[in-house]
């Protein structure tokens, strides 16, 4: 006998699909099948069932081997590490629930940490741009119901957000969009031809790193101004004009953008320009812009830090109040300056996703990695604490890329005796309170 659970939330990307159907064994201990998920999401659910999964904390030894320790020892080690550090970095938070993030904030306040999420290497520059110039935006359901003009700028949803186009942006039929993709015009801006650009009505193959120039040219073209030069940022001028007209002629348009603009030269200024293009287009029609957030709950971390401290990422609490200046308090620059004296990673893998200089610094610090699985980070940290898998083995609130909160579900029991990250953090927090009081 098996049980079927519907309306399951996928804890992979910021698309946060909530229509998965999961089949589990009758006793709820084995996950057997996942329907409706993309290839990546399905793999994520199934990986929880891996036979070689680590289920107890492990301490790295001098000789490079790992020795199993108890959760109690892991709690003590983590609490001591954070309590003793002058400026610990608590990084990650994007692959966990808002409830766990909230406990993380309490710990960070107690120990005077820098608390940062994966926006630091993802959409951090977007958050800065929003602070510069604002953001006219909408929910993904608005896109589905109204949009007839879509731009994917520096993003490749066919690979990174596989169900985005079918659920929200290109193919669905909504209230005012009964003809689905037939009435939607798609522009893709990417230096490569990609599996997304192959669907486009117009592919603007921008010269890598010249997005700012192309965006400003489009702004000028939208206003009807004359452009000089035949090729602009690698794109023929005529195509720029054509794109501007296409955007203005729609009834409701949306720009989705990704790492192509946030991580290329220009950084937040690229996004400033994209947002201002959106604002300009509202003089002619209705336009919104949405960041293609990566981790399924990086948005939630920004929200929790926002209502608790007032800043969405890279928050420095080491002075007893919240400071924020990403170029200084962000994880990358902090590690480059060798300023952190301990690191705790939860719900992210900087080992795999930070530049090597920063990874090397992590490897040389007192360190704890809290993650359900073995990762490059877990293998360079002194302590690895495996925890139950959020969104699979424990529920909790998450925020979609358009900031819509969805409460994820527990569908299967974690391996026996495993703690959730929220439980582990609570225990650490309690222990730190004791240490500080002593």
């Amino acid at each position: 006998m098996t049980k079927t659970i519907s309306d399951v939330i996928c804890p992979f990307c910021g698309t946060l699909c909530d229509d998965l159907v999961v089949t589990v064994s009758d006793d709820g201990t084995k996950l057997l099948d996942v329907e409706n998920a993309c290839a990546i999401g399905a793999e994520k659910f199934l990986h929880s069932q891996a036979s070689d999964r680590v289920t107890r904390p492990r301490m790295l030894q001098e000789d490079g081997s790992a020795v199993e320790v108890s959760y109690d020892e892991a709690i003590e080690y983590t609490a001591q590490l954070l309590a003793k550090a002058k400026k610990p970095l608590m990084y990650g938070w994007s692959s966990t629930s808002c409830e766990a993030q909230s406990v993380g904030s309490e710990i960070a306040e107690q120990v005077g940490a820098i608390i940062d999420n994966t926006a630091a290497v993802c959409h951090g520059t977007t958050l800065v741009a929003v602070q510069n110039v604002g953001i006219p935006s909408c929910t993904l359901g608005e896109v589905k119901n109204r949009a007839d003009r879509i731009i994917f700028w520096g993003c490749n949803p066919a690979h990174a957000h596989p169900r985005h186009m079918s659920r929200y942006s290109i193919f669905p039929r909504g209230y005012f969009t009964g003809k689905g993709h037939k009435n939607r015009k798609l522009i893709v801006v990417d230096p490569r031809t990609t599996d997304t650009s192959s669907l486009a009505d117009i592919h603007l193959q921008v010269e890598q790193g010249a997005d700012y120039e192309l965006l400003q040219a489009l702004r000028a073209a939208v206003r009807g101004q004359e452009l000089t030069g035949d090729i602009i940022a690698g794109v023929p001028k005529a195509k720029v004009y054509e794109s501007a007209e296409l955007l203005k002629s729609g009834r409701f348009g949306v720009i989705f953008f990704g790492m192509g603009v946030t991580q290329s030269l220009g950084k937040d200024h690229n996004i400033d320009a994209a947002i201002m293009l959106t604002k300009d287009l509202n003089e002619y029609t209705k336009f919104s812009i949405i960041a293609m957030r990566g981790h399924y709950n990086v948005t939630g971390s920004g929200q929790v830090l926002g209502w608790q401290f007032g800043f969405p990422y890279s928050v420095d609490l080491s002075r007893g109040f919240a400071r924020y200046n990403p170029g200084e308090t962000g994880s990358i620059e902090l590690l480059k300056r060798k300023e952190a004296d301990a690191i705790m990673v939860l719900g992210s893998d900087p080992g795999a996703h930070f530049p090597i200089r920063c990874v090397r610094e992590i490897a040389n610090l007192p360190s704890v990695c809290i993650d359900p699985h073995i990762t490059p980070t877990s293998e360079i940290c002194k302590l690895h604490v495996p925890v139950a898998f959020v969104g699979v083995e424990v529920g909790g609130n998450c925020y979609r890329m358009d900031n819509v909160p969805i409460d994820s579900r527990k569908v299967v029991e974690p391996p026996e005796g495993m703690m959730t990250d929220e439980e582990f953090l609570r225990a650490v927090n309690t222990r730190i309170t004791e240490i500080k009081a002593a």
Partner: protein
Amino acid sequence: MADEYIIRNGHVYDPKQGIKGDVMDICIADGKIVSKVSGKAKEIDATGKTVMAGAVEIHAHVAGPKVNEGRNYRPEDKLFTCKATGKTRMEGGFSIPTTFRTGYNYARMGYTTVMEAAMPPLYARHVHEEIKDTPIVDQGAYPVFGNNWFVFEYLKNNEETNVNAYISWLLRVTKGYALKLVNPGGSEAWGWGKNCDGVHDPVPYFDITPAEIMTGLMKANEQLGLPHSIHVHTNNLGNPGNFETTLDTFRLTEGVKPNNKFGREQVFHHTHVQFHSYGGDNWGNFESKAKEIMSYVNQNKNITIDLGCVTLDETTTMTADGPFEHHLTELNHLKWANLDVELETSSGIVPYVYSPDIKVCAIQWAIGLELGLLAKDPMRTYITTDHPNAGPFTRYPRVFGWLMDAKYRNERLSTFKHSEKVNDATSLGSLDREITLYELAQMTRAGPAKALGLTNMCGGLAPGMDADVSVYNINADRLDGASIEKAFSSADQVFKSGVLVVDNNEIVAEPAKRTFWVDVKVPENKQVERDVAMKFLKYYSMNLGNYEVSDHFAPHPYVIEVDAS
């Protein structure tokens, strides 16, 4: 068992019981006001001080998606406002403070109940997460109904029972408190970059007018007998000449009678009326129509209002009135955030500087105070700043000072850069009324509590009511503006449900706070169930099975049950 307290010899102001500054003792036991306590009761000496019930905030934007977008996109709002305390959670922010600072600051001012003014249903979970993290004060939130596609369709087809069933369902799944309408119809039109400029201006594609939406929901609200009336921000906010739209809106209430078991007497609450009381037809001849507005309000007992007083600060405007915020960014060219929500609403955010050197800002300031001073019934007129739109709630004490001390007010009025023009455009300079402490208690305690249907629970000091009590170091003998501002900024003592939360002007306890929501029972309605299922399948981006806010988001609920079956 909770501690017993006796607050001795204070000047008590309690409109609920008609007590006007009499020197008396207030007793607290088991979280309630009682008539006497045992000898073990702890004593608080309030000699020479003022004792009132905990204040009740009827309209403020303090939790949820747009508030948090405001926080996150305005790092500058934290400048010089973050400080280490060590005892409480870290605090930061001025116009959009963090949740912790929000709870602490309301408590410091003696506020114990705070209503969040606009909750997009799709984002209800976010609102409740923030409410959970806002310490001390009891809270509820008003889901927005005025641009909801279900409401449009049922009202257009005169399907009254379906409207009622849908309202009941939406209040339950969002854990909502009351029906909020923001720019009815206009925020939906904003989905296409359009707006509804007047109450008879039809909503594109939906064949319904703002007047029909307001009338329909007002009727439904009374048929269901909800604790609060509909809570409205009408069309045409912020524009010169909009007082006509406001009066058109008020007239929709004529002949409508309240129906509820909560002691509420109004059928319609209009919020931040300052923004809706403008004459003229451009910014050059912009002028106050506070007299016209208040003359209508004074004569019609089934209407209540709150003021929306401008505090002359740099602040952050935010509203579910999406087209208005776009209009504002075109005026001041400051950064614009917009968020349209599928099937439900739009919203926007723009920072704003109410400069005393700008004529229009000074006139707006004057209008807010005029409305308060022209009110004949303080039980129906409540002091707000539409936080943070006209100014942060932490400026309430200053607004009290302006309302209660004519000299203080006139000093401000006469030192504007354009004082003469402000005097020409408003009547403030000719008003010598000074709001009394008793009237203040009506406008901040008994009045809003009654309008919210909470008159037997909070906003008063009668035995049996929740022991929400504030003690202020001031009395009727020294009511100058500066003293008023100082005393009401920082209460000496505050009790929340019988727990001493502020003592000697400092937060000393953070007891579990409650979330108020309204559960209305209506007859089973298969049609609405089918319609909801269909719309979620076809038009929402979220599955119906994931829409309802589960109980753990409101760990200490206070559910008001209404039987309309």
